[in-house]
């Protein structure tokens, strides 16, 4: 079997890719047909293993160190494999602090990874991301507006809404942004993906300005909770998060089925139609679903940037661009990134905790720059 290397040239990235291929070739799982299925299964299995490892490590680190053995023993006890749990303190830390947090990280990471993949395919643009078309920022704007002006907008009903007011506002913000982008980018019954991307950039700027205005109006107590929406946090809102988590799970499950349609879309809208795809329907469904899940993600955790951009690109470096693999692999990769970033956020400034959006920004920003540099070099050749 011959070695397939996508791009000629050196560099550590190509070297790493070559090694991966070499291993896959040796295992006779590269190639077509049945082999491709095995390769897909193997990539997903590898990512799942990494995710489980990340979860175990992340459960152990933080203000109170808990050994890996203890963590595994506790998990085994939880699913009924081990008799007798670990000591009371560790069990309490794991159950009420770290497990819910890490589960949120997994769901939100998977959501952002899948949403990023869908956006990049939909806009046929490798730098698209839910943050870029302003959906995340608009959701945050909605949330911030509710925190600062909620008692004015809802009056006496504000208390009745209780903890649901802010997530619902985040949701409405995301929905409104998507609606506006779709209406503005429609022309003669068609939507131009490039125009849509630019309109999204403009909406993003407006939403960020909106967040700024509400921040300016906020009092000291409100400012603290505003930080949460702007910089992201996985601490959650308790039971108020449940509807959003359900929306994310269902939305991601739907988006995962769009592998082949999105592959066709990458050929171009006209070509996708020639191949039997109802292009407008796909664009409508995919953008609305993406807005829903991103709105839900922001409602739970605030703005967490770069995961939606990073995850699909990392996956494509190893698995190639086929969305049938990239979608599920990006879900796993996004979850890994967020679980990892969360662990970093919890240990780096002990005993305090860094907002997770800062961690993903610090790690994601340079990666984004690297991506652009690589693109620039490729264009020059």
């Amino acid at each position, binding site marked *: 079997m011959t070695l397939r290397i996508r791009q000629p040239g050196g560099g550590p990235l190509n070297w790493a890719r070559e090694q991966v291929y070499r291993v896959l070739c040796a295992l006779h799982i590269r190639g077509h047909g049945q082999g491709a299925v095995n390769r897909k299964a193997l990539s997903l299995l590898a990512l799942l293993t990494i995710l489980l490892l990340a979860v175990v490590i992340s459960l152990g680190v933080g203000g109170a160190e808990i050994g890996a053995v203890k963590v595994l023993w506790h998990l085994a006890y939880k699913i009924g494999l081990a008799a007798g749990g670990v000591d009371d303190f560790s069990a309490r830390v794991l159950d009420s602090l770290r497990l819910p947090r890490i589960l949120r990280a997994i769901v939100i990471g998977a959501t952002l990874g899948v949403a990023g993949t869908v956006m990049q395919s939909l806009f046929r643009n490798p730098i698209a991301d839910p943050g870029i078309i302003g959906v995340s920022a608009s959701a945050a704007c909605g949330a911030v507006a509710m925190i600062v002006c909620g008692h004015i907008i809802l009056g006496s009903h504000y208390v009745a809404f209780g903890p649901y007011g802010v997530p619902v506002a985040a949701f409405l913000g995301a929905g409104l942004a998507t609606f506006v982008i779709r209406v503005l980018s429609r022309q003669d019954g068609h939507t131009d993906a490039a125009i849509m991307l630019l309109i999204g950039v403009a909406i993003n700027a407006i939403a960020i300005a909106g967040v700024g205005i509400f921040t300016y109006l906020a009092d000291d107590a409100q400012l603290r909770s505003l930080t949460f929406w702007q910089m992201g946090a996985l601490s959650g809102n308790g039971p108020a998060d449940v509807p959003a988590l359900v929306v994310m799970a269902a939305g991601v499950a739907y988006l995962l089925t769009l592998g082949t349609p999105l*592959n066709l879309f990458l050929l171009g809208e006209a070509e996708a*139609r020639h191949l*039997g*795809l*109802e292009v407008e329907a796909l664009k409508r469904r995919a953008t609305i679903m993406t807005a829903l899940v991103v709105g839900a993600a922001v409602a739970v955790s605030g703005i967490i940037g770069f995961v939606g951009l990073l995850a699909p690109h990392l996956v*494509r470096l190893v698995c*190639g661009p086929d969305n049938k693999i990239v979608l599920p692999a990006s879900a796993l990769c996004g979850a890994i990134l967020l679980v990892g970033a969360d662990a970093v956020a919890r240990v780096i400034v002990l005993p305090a905790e860094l907002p997770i959006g800062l961690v993903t920004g610090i790690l994601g920003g340079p990666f984004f720059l690297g991506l652009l540099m690589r693109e620039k070099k490729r264009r020059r050749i």
Partner: protein
Amino acid sequence: MTLCAQNVRFEVRGRALLDDVSITLHPGEVLAVLGPNGAGKSTLLKVLAGELAPAGGRVTQNGVDIGHVPALVLAQNRAVMPQAAAMAFPFIVRDVVMLGRAPFRKISSRHIDRDLVEKAILLADIGHLADHAYPALSGGEKQRVHLARALVQLWGMPNNTTSQSARFLLLDEPTAGLDIGHQQGLLAIARREAEDHKTGVLMILHDFNQVSGYADRVVVLRQGKVVAQGPTDQVMRPDLLSDVFESPIRAIADPDGARDILVSSNAPVSR
């Protein structure tokens, strides 16, 4: 069972790109579309493919108005080879060709798909490129990839000979960017599809002698109107073509062939 445009009109901001155009593509024939730049050739192809909805008239595929048929049903009986298609992500050539099997993904098997893809790759002469990244190919190589993709779509299901519907292949300037050998190869493939599989082939061409050599019928467009339509030898006359293209064209006898060769010449047609 034809692909048929009836009195089609298409406008952009009040300007008619197609005006009362009626053409019929029959199974088993090669129909060439000829005309100067901006005559509406590509627009006509897009209207026939269902990509643009006509402002007047109608387009039917196998007797049904294509406005009322799901894109998937159209795609199972009609393939289009576009002029150029860019892909932002580095798909492997073989995977791009495989996308042509998408209309049959619910009814085909992996085995059938793979066989058809390999066959099309050989026909389009891209075997040596099959494992390369698509964006790294040259323009002509990309064209051949799209030819292979259109072929695997066109072939549909191999055992489906009982199907009542005819199949159609639409080629938008398929020879653009190809070297002369691959141009002849492509035209021969189109010809064979028409003869062996009773496919209706429509292609937009610019080379008069390729039209004379490979087409059964010709449609000549100018400024959105059909100015001539008929069997190749009746339409490909130097006087008609000189008039349409506003450039002197003459026929000279080919010492080795039965057919005259059409040449463009700025020299006076007669002294």
